[in-house]
């Protein structure tokens, strides 16, 4: 490239030359600083992590629609016994729909592994891995509607647009691979908050999630927008970039001090590298047949979700911090207001084997040590019947964690005898967020960002780390 004489004003520009990437935290913060024209010149420059991290990255397996706790991981003998009877205590003041009497689970529960953790017959493969799972049975949230609840799980807020948890993590930790984004989300749903579920909101744009496709796209077609050029060959693009750099240097020397001119020059170089790095990270064709089989790619039932899980593992290996995989099809996947039995059976079949495969694969590679897995939906379902299904229930439901820093084979917290309300060791969504940040080495009370005159955090003014589940 042509090196022109550096104009006298560009020292600061040089400083932030590589701040356009996904890399170095300090530089990224500097970018945040300079692009944050609204706010004070006092950007948060977190000295992070706050303490040693137990996990370097996280894979969030989001079961959109709300899987039923009493049919998956939280067995309730009294629910079976009292099938068809009224719930012996009050339903919540705020319910999504009216529900009738108690309805027992159509699935049998059994104990597995050394830990004897209960799993229903919906998850035969995952059941083999319970000794790695930490069940949290006492989850509860605040919103009984999909929209609010999905936003709450992703951003901690159900009525404001706030940075997604993935954006907070990228902001806190940056990425390990400067050619890849720190936060990717595979086939996310565009309903119920849409892009706000991976947006950086008021955090600098560099921290937003990069979507691969969306829920209307099969995972083998999921791509990052604009990553491919439909017109120019690589050779022509290289010529274009070289000329572009020459023109930009010439322009810079005549324009005046503006750091983003330099940043934009670098951004084209990075974009060019990303064009090859991103598709490569996504491309599973180099994976062996047996590996693809482990994730269920050989079966039409599991192939779509299995591919997402395999992509997730590849991103984890490549250094992406926050990887979200969404189980959603053209319906609100786990939302069985009716036809619980066929619906949950179909859903569980699609994810059971791939998730078990992902856990096995990560473990075999030694990646489970420092990769946190987070499984769950935006809420659970009522033990009471809504026709042949169950209604939304944010009062008590199960999520599970596995991997970096959490105890395996554990059951934490509990719901009441029928599985309606979280009762023991209640874990609010804010608490879950605080715990996840903690495992990643981030103090949820100190991971803040000043915007519109106040310091914001993922957990707002709430959140307690659930220390009992830490290994």
């Amino acid at each position, binding site marked *: 490239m042509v090196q022109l004489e550096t104009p006298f*004003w560009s020292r*600061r520009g040089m400083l932030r030359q590589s701040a*356009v990437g996904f890399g170095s935290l300090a530089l990224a913060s500097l970018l945040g*600083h300079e*692009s*944050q*024209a609204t*706010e*004070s*010149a*006092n950007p948060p420059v*977190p000295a992070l992590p706050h303490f040693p991290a137990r996990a370097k990255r996280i894979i969030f397996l989001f079961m959109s629609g709300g899987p039923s706790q009493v049919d998956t991981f939280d067995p309730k003998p009294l629910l079976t016994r009292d099938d068809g009877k009224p719930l012996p205590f009050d339903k919540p003041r*705020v*319910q999504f729909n009216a529900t009738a009497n108690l309805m027992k689970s159509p699935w049998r529960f059994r104990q597995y592994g050394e830990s004897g953790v209960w799993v229903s017959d919906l998850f035969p493969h995952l059941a083999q891995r319970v000794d790695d799972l930490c069940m949290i049975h006492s989850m509860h949230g605040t919103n*009984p*509607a*999909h929209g609010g609840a999905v936003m709450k799980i992703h951003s901690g807020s159900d*009525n*404001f*647009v706030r940075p997604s948890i993935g954006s907070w993590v990228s902001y806190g930790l940056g990425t390990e691979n400067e050619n890849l984004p720190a936060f990717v989300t595979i086939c996310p*749903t*565009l*309903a*119920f*908050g*849409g892009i*706000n579920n991976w947006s950086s909101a008021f955090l600098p744009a560099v921290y937003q999630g*990069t979507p691969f496709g969306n*829920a*209307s796209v099969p995972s083998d077609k999921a791509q990052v927008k*604009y990553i491919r*050029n*439909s017109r120019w060959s690589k*050779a*022509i693009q290289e*010529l*274009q970039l070289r000329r572009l750099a*020459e*023109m*930009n240097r*010439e322009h810079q020397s*005549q*324009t*005046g*001090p*503006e750091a*983003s001119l330099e*940043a*934009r*020059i670098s*951004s*084209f170089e990075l*974009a*060019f590298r*990303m064009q090859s790095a991103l598709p490569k990270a996504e491309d599973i064709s180099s994976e062996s047949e047996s590996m693809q089989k482990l994730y269920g790619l050989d079966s039409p039932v599991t192939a779509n979700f299995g591919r997402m899980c395999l992509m997730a593992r590849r991103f984890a290996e490549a250094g992406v911090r926050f990887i979200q995989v969404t189980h*959603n099809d*053209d319906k609100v996947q786990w939302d069985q207001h009716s036809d619980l039995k066929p619906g949950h059976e179909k859903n569980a079949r699609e994810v059971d084997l791939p998730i078990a495969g992902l856990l096995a694969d990560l473990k075999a590679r030694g990646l489970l040590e420092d990769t946190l897995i987070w499984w769950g939906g935006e809420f659970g379902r009522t033990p009471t019947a809504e026709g042949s299904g169950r209604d939304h229930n944010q009062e008590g439901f199960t999520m599970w964690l596995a991997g970096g820093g959490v105890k395996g084979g554990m059951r934490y917290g509990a719901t009441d005898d029928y599985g309606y309300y979280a009762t023991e060791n209640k874990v609010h969504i804010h608490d879950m967020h605080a715990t996840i940040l903690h495992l990643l080495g981030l103090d949820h009370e*100190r991971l*803040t960002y000043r915007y519109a005159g106040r*310091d914001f955090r993922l957990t707002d003014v709430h959140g307690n780390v659930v220390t009992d589940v830490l290994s």
Partner: protein
Amino acid sequence: MSVLMCVILLAQEPPPAEASTAEASSSESTRFFETSVRPVLFEHCYKCHGPEKQWAGLRLDSRDAILKGGDSGPAILPGKPEESLLVRAIRHEDDNLKMPEDGKLSEDQIADLVRWIEQGAPYPDNVATRTRTRDPEHWVFHPPAEQAIPEVKDRAWPGSPIDHFILAKLDAIERAPSMQADKQTLIRRVTFDLTGLPPTPEEIAAFLGDQSPDAFSRLVDRLLDSPAHGERWGRHWLDVARYADSNGLDENVAHGHAWRYRDYVVSSFNQDKPIDRFIVEQLAGDLLPFDGEAQQQVQLTATGFLSIGPKVLAEVDQAKMRMDIVDEQIDTVGRVFMGLTLGCARCHDHKFDPIDTADYYGLAGIFKSTRTMDTYTKVAKWHEHLLPSAAASAIQAEFDAQVSAKKQAIEAFIAEADKQARGSLAADQAAPERLDSRYPESTKMDLAKLREALSTLETAGPDLPSTMGVTEDDVIDVAIHVRGDPLKLGEIVARHVPPVISGPGRPAFSSTASGRQQFANWLIDPQHPLTARVFVNRVWRWHFGRGLVRTTDNFGLLGERPSHPELLDWLAQRFIADGWSLKSLHRLILNSSTWQQSSIPDPQTLENDPENRLFGRANVRRLSAEELRDSLLAISGRLDTAVGGPVLKVKNRGYLFDHTSIDLTDYTSIRRSLYLPVIRNNVFDLFQLLDFPDPAVPTGDRVTSTVATQALLMLNSDFVIQSADTLAERLLTEQESNAQRLAALTLIAYGRDATTEEIHSHERYLAQIEEALSGTEQDLTARKRQAWNALCHTVLAANEFIYLK
């Protein structure tokens, strides 16, 4: 010096040459103090040991005060927590000294205070002097004082009173402003500024050829008169008004009629509607007298401002939904018109500004007495005003006719069916009262179908012209919601405006009206300390890229102080004196020497003011998402300049996004970006990438980020590639030689003449591409065309296309 201190100094005086990086090391302790120590002191100690009370002679709101201590001696010994009285008190080690009195701090809080003392108890005390939290004497709560125009050394430089204020500050540090920008730079800058579009080669030639002294001010007048002006400046206001064509949040349904509010804003700006009037219309247009249907429609449409915010439409808790909507309105009105974060006071007294929870609920009464929603049952429905007009009457009449025709058809059908049923009766049978039970099955089904069609038609209602907006509801005063909880009600608060805002007379609220009109009139009172200041500061931000108060939406204690407080006050008063005329304000600013400076700084001024806090040069500015897209369409000759109208294909209240995740919005239009749908939760990706604001919240100060995904867009998007193709086509057909083409390209894309050297470089580049294509493209004409496409693409991707100087 702490970073925070820097901020305060920056806010008050010219900045030191090298600002923050060196202080980064202390930023962590400052952050620790601000996040873990000050809040504890504030929450648990200041009440008795702060500005208002000093029990036992002790204050804890500055380091000096803490070190000095109270009746029992110094409160702390820096670095020695174990020997500090404060630590003994908070640990409850001494029975006679247990603090705070209302309950022991948590172990974490105690540990934080201990750690802070270990660190030497750093206390960024400038913050205390700056903020004096909840300070009713803070400048923003008092009307601007009359400002004399300052004297300056160089009397030749100022072209406007504004310049005196700017130059006086530069004089104070003995530094000079920049030279005036050249005419090519100025016409490009001002055309984008006022219309959001690039100047055409003809417009550039006309301006360069105009040697008269008032050439520039006549250029400004021409641009202010163009319809594109309202489209550009209307969009600024739409940022602030959190305008969107969809609800967003949980139920992303279409605001099918929001476009009427958008067009109202555009035409208000084009007409130079006085801004005080503009404000009142948006808050209380439905209550204003009107002269004829047209004016009534305009005023009803204006109230869309209060209605277009995002709402959780499937919120099951209806009481909560209702207060959430009121909250969104209070917060928006507070930020937009007063630069105050009133929303903070919903759950607790505002921590930094003297706005109490009672003041919040005093305002909440106004908005709860206002009808925004027709129903709160999920999915809730917002209110719309029907817009009476001849066309509407015709639609209604047509609809009524359809309904009545269907009813008649049903009656006729029944009559006929009855006749047949009666006919089927045996002669001696008495006719039953109702014959329908005797209809044949097929007749029953046909009748059911007819009735269903009628019911469908009646439920759908006529598609009358209507507009989102608010109206009056039952008038009530609202009780304080303890911690914002609609189930925990405290005392009822009479509607009132925050008493800390001095200047205008306090409006009286009646039991027969919500009080929106009184509230709006109070806002535009010339004595109101905030409304005009906040507005002129927004305008300054939109012209210069940075406000005199940088935090355009927060003038409170956590906002920044103005860099030029006297200028801000002078502008506010001048604006009011000019009848709140925005176009007069534009002329005042654009004709100033300050605005017309070059972006190349005086080296010494740069040294002293690298951030350009003193406006001693023009800021280099990247085009907004809309300007970039509109420019790409304009220079390739494709821009459709049609004005106004609806933009959605989804019907009103229909879902833009549902569980299928299929995008039902079409962005292929070649109209100005203003007329692309603004879909919350899923903003058009080109906009998203280029910092279009989140349309769910008011934004007066868009950020400009520079990220690699923007480069991917410029390199790979079909839209950019097609724009380049069209431009290349235009050059190849309109111009004779390569040199002419390259000159035209530079003029069209960059608004300037090409240099000889530049033309040669471009020619070499064309040859390189042709050579690289020679392996794959055998046809020479096609190869040449491709090379031009690639060149145009490069020119459009370059910084010069997307940055203004």
